[in-house]
C-alpha cells in the first residue's frame, strides 16, 4: 500500500524485535471471538488515478455549469490562487494545534494576525482564534452571555439565519436556556416594539443579525441601549463578512458572532468554514475557544502562545467555558491570507462592487411586472423581492435556463412563500443578472 513505508522484511524484523511471531499476537488483548475473521466489506483499494476519477464523476452529477443566485449564509466570492498556495504548504496543512509553541510559531502568529483582523473588522476589542462556523459561534456567544449575566432567557430575532437559530435551540435545550423569538417590521428590520415587550431583567442576551437574513442592515445602537437598560447583552451575528468593508462595524454589540466563509473559503456544500466570537476586553475570561497571545521568550524575542487556557476543557474539564477543543485554524488562515491580500482598499472596493451589482439586479427585477421589493430597509448584496406567484414555481422554470434561482424564504417563513432572497456578489456578471431577469419574466408570463 503506497501510504505505508514498510517492506515485508522490515515488518518481520520489527515483529521479532518485539518478540512476536505473528502480527496477530499483538492483538491478543482483544478477546479472540471479537476479532474480525474476514476483511471489511469496503470498495476495493483504488489507485490515486482512480480516486480522482471517482470524485470527478461525482462532481459532474452536481451543479457544474449553472449560474447561482444563492446566498442565505454561504457566499460565492472571488478566491485568490495565493490563498490556496499558502494553505497547501505542508507546514500549515499537516501541523497540529500549536501546543508546542517553539515549533508552531507560524500557526500561532497567523492566528494572532487573524484575531487582529477580526477585531478591526468587527470594531470589537478581542476576538478568538475561530470556532466551527457562524451557527455554533452564535450559540457560543449566547452561552457566553448566559455565563456573564447568570440569566436564562435569550431573545432571538426571527431575521437571524434560521439554521443558526435551530442550532441554538439544540444547545439550549439542556443547558436550561430559554429561547424566545421576536419578529420583523415591513422594513425588514427587527420589531423593536415586540422586543421591548419581551425584554425583562431576566434576559441574558438579545440576538440580531446584520445584514439580517432578509439582507437588511440593522441599526444596532438603540438595540444595544434597550438591552443594556435591562442588564442584557446585545449579540450581533454577521453571516456576510464582506459587508463590513462598507457597513459600519457592530461596535455597539457586546458580543459579535461572525461567519468568515466569505473570506477565501469555498462554499464546499456547507463546510468547513470558520466562526468567530469577538467581544470586549472585560469579557475575555468568559470567551469560548482558543486565544493566541503575544509574549517574549527567555531572550526577550517576541513570540506567541496559546493563552488563558484555563478556560478550556482540557484543564477545566466539567467547568470549561465550552467543550470545543479545536479552532478551525486552516480556515482561519485562509481568511487571514485572503484579507491580507484584499487589504484596506481591496475590501472596500469589493464591498462596493457587491452593492453596485445588487442594486443593478434589484433594478432589473423591479422592471418586471408584478415583481416588487419586499423590505424597504437598506441592504448590502442580498435583497428580498416578492413574486406574484410561488417562488418554487419560478425557480423550477429558472432551472430550465441553467439558473439556480434565489433562496425560497417560504421554506422557513410560512408567511413568505412568494418571497425570494436574491444574492449577487462581485462574481456575478451583468450578463448573468440580465439572464436571471429574463428568466423570471418568462417564468411569470408562463
Amino acid at each position, binding site marked *: *500500500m503506497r*501510504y505505508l513505508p514498510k517492506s515485508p522484511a*522490515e515488518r518481520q524484523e*520489527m515483529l521479532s524485535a*518485539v518478540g512476536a511471531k505473528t502480527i496477530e499476537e499483538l492483538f491478543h*488483548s*482483544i478477546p479472540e471471538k471479537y476479532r474480525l475473521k474476514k476483511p*471489511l466489506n*469496503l470498495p476495493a*483499494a*483504488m489507485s*490515486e488515478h*482512480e*480516486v480522482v476519477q471517482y*470524485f*470527478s464523476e461525482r462532481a459532474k452529477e452536481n*451543479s457544474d455549469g*449553472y449560474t447561482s443566485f444563492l446566498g442565505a449564509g*454561504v457566499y460565492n466570492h472571488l478566491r485568490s490562487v*495565493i490563498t490556496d*498556495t*499558502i494553505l*497547501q504548504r*505542508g*507546514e500549515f496543512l499537516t501541523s*497540529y494545534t500549536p501546543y*508546542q509553541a*517553539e*515549533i508552531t510559531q507560524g500557526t500561532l502568529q497567523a492566528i494572532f494576525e487573524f484575531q487582529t483582523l477580526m477585531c478591526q473588522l468587527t470594531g470589537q476589542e478581542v476576538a478568538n482564534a*475561530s470556532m*466551527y*462556523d457562524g451557527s455554533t459561534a452564535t450559540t457560543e456567544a449566547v452561552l457566553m452571555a448566559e455565563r456573564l449575566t447568570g440569566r436564562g432567557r435569550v431573545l432571538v430575532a426571527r431575521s437571524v439565519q434560521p*439554521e443558526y437559530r435551530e442550532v441554538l435551540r*439544540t*444547545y439550549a*435545550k439542556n443547558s436550561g436556556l430559554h429561547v424566545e423569538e421576536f419578529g420583523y417590521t415591513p422594513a425588514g428590520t427587527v420589531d423593536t416594539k415586540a422586543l421591548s415587550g419581551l425584554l425583562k431583567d431576566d434576559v441574558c442576551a438579545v440576538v440580531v443579525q446584520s445584514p439580517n437574513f432578509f439582507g437588511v*442592515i440593522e*441599526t444596532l445602537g438603540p438595540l444595544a441601549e434597550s438591552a443594556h437598560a435591562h442588564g442584557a447583552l446585545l449579540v450581533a451575528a454577521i453571516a456576510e463578512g464582506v459587508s463590513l468593508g462598507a457597513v*459600519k462595524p457592530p461596535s455597539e454589540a457586546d458580543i459579535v458572532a461572525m461567519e468568515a466563509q466569505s473570506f477565501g473559503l*469555498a*462554499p464546499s456544500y456547507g*463546510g*468547513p468554514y470558520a466562526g468567530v466570537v469577538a467581544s470586549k476586553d472585560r469579557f475575555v475570561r468568559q470567551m469560548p475557544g482558543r486565544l493566541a497571545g503575544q*509574549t517574549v*521568550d527567555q*531572550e526577550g*524575542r517576541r513570540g506567541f502562545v496559546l*493563552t488563558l487556557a484555563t478556560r478550556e*476543557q482540557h484543564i*477545566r*474539564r466539567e467547568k470549561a467555558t465550552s467543550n470545543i477543543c479545536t479552532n*478551525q485554524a486552516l480556515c482561519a488562515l485562509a481568511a487571514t*491570507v485572503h484579507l491580507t491580500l*484584499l487589504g*484596506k482598499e481591496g*475590501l472596500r472596493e469589493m464591498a*462596493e*462592487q457587491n452593492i453596485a451589482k445588487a442594486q443593478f439586479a434589484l433594478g432589473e427585477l423591479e422592471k418586471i411586472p408584478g415583481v416588487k421589493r419586499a423590505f424597504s430597509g*437598506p441592504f448590502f448584496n442580498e435583497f428580498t423581492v416578492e413574486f406574484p406567484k410561488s417562488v418554487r414555481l419560478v*425557480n423550477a422554470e429558472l432551472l430550465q435556463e441553467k439558473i439556480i434561482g434565489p433562496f425560497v424564504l417560504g421554506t422557513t417563513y410560512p408567511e413568505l412563500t412568494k418571497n425570494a432572497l436574491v444574492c449577487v456578489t462581485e462574481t456575478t456578471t451583468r450578463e448573468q443578472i440580465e439572464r436571471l431577469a429574463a428568466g423570471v419574466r418568462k417564468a411569470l408570463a408562463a
Partner: protein
Amino acid sequence: MNEKIKKATRHTNQNEGLIFEKSSPGKRALDWPPLDVPKVDPTKLLGEHHRTSGVEGFPEVSEIEVLRHFTRLSTWNYAIDLGMYPLGSCTMKYNPRVNEFVARLNGIATEHPYQPQELSQGCLKILRLLEKCLLEITGMDAVTLQPAAGAQGELTGLLLIRAYLQKQGNARKTVLIPDSAHGTNPATAVIAGYEVQNIKSNADGQIDIEHLKEQVTDDVAALMLTNPSTLGIFEQRIPEIAEILHKKGALLYMDGANMNALTGVTRPGDLGVDVMHLNLHKTFSTPHGGGGPGAGPVAVKKILEPFLPIPVLVEREGGKFALDSQRKESIGRVKAFAGNFGVLVRALAYILAYGPGVRQATEDAVLNANYIRKGLEGVYDLPYTRPSMHEVVFSDVLQKKNGVNTMDIAKRLIDYGFHPYTTAFPLIVPGALMIEPTESESKEECDLFIDAMKAIAQEAAVTPEIVKTAPHTTRVKRLDEVGAARKPILRWKPEVKRSEAAD
C-alpha cells in the same frame, strides 16, 4: 562517516514581523475586474450605516510580500511532512495529497448547500458511500456526518442518549467517565445537562468492574469509554461492561479517538457499544491544519436512529438521494448546513485508497507503538505493563531523580528533530510521556526516535541542565506563558507616533 543520530538538527530560523508592520498605504495585492454595472454611491444607499473609509488598520501590502510573509511563517512550524509527530491520542498520520486535490475539484468545492438536491446528487452519493464505509468499519446501524469535530460528536452522542432515555420517561442524571478520560468528555457531559461521576481504573489501567457495578444505578444515563484507553490499552471486558449498563437501562458511549488501533481488527458495534463518535482528522487522515477543521461523525445502534440530528440523508425511489429535515424525534440541528463536507470528502478518499487493506494500517500502527515500547523499556519507566495497542505511555519517574520532567524531555526532543509526544496526559499517570507513532512511520524513523529518546535519557542523567533548558535549536526559546496570561496581548495595535500624538 558515522552519525548515529541523524535527526539531530537545527530549526529553520528566518525573521519576520507582523503583516501589519509591513503595511504602507497604496500597496495592493489584488486587482478587480472592472465593474460591468453602473457605479453607485454607497453613502446615499447606506446612509448612517456607511463605513466610508474602509477598515481602519487593515494591512496594505503587495502580492509577493503576502506570499513571503506566510511562507516564512510556515517555516517556523513543525509538521508531519517534516517528520514523526508522535502526539499520543492525536493520530498524526500522513495526509495524502490526492485528498486535497479532489476536495478542490470544480463541482465539489463550488457547491452551495442550498442548491436543489437534484443538482447535488454527486455530493449526496459521496456522503452515502462514506456513511456505508463508516458503518462497516464500526459495525453500527446508522450514522450522522453532521458534527464538525470530535467534541461536537460527543455532544451529539450524549444528546441522542438523552433523547432516547427521555422517551422512556426519564433522561436520568449522571454520566460515568473513567479517570483516564480526555477532558472533553466531562466538559461535554455537562453541556448535555448531565452530572459527571468519575470511575477508577484498576492497577492494570482497566475499568474496575466491581466498582462499576456499584456505580451503575438507575440515575446513570451512560458510561463514556475511550477504547483503547488513553493508556493505549484495550478494555478487555467491554462486552461485560456493556451488559452491566444495559441491565440497568443505561447505554455505552465509546469515544472513537483511538479507532486507529481497531479499524479492520474489531468493531465497536460487535462489542456492545450503543453510540460512538469518530475523529476523521485522526483515524481517517484529514489534515489537522494547525488545529482544525475536523469532523466527528456519530454512529449509533438502531434504537437511537430516530433521534439523529437533521438533516438526515435518505434514499428516495429511483436511487435518488435527499436530505430530510422533517423528523419529529430528532434532537435537532447541531451545525448549519450538511456537515463539514470538504473534510468528509477527504476522509472518503482515504478509505477508498485503502479499501479492505485498511487493516494493514492498523497493524503497522500497533507494530510501531510496540517497537518503540520495546526500544525504550528500561530507559523510561512503564507504569502500566499490559500490552500496548497503537500508543504507549511511559512516565518520567526515572528522570525526575535528576529534576528532569516529561515536559523537559519533550522540549529536548525538538532539538533532535522530532515533535514532542503528548505530555502529562493521561492524568492518572503522573509525568506521562504518551507516544503514538502511527502507521506512517518507517522502521528507520522509529529507530531514529528511539535513539533520540535514549540520548536524552542519558543527558538527563549526566547533564540535566541542557535538557531542562531545551529547546536550543528553535527560533524562539521557551516562552513566558505566565506573562502572557497575566497581561494578555491578544491583538496587534499600531503604536502611536509622537507627531500624531502631538497634534
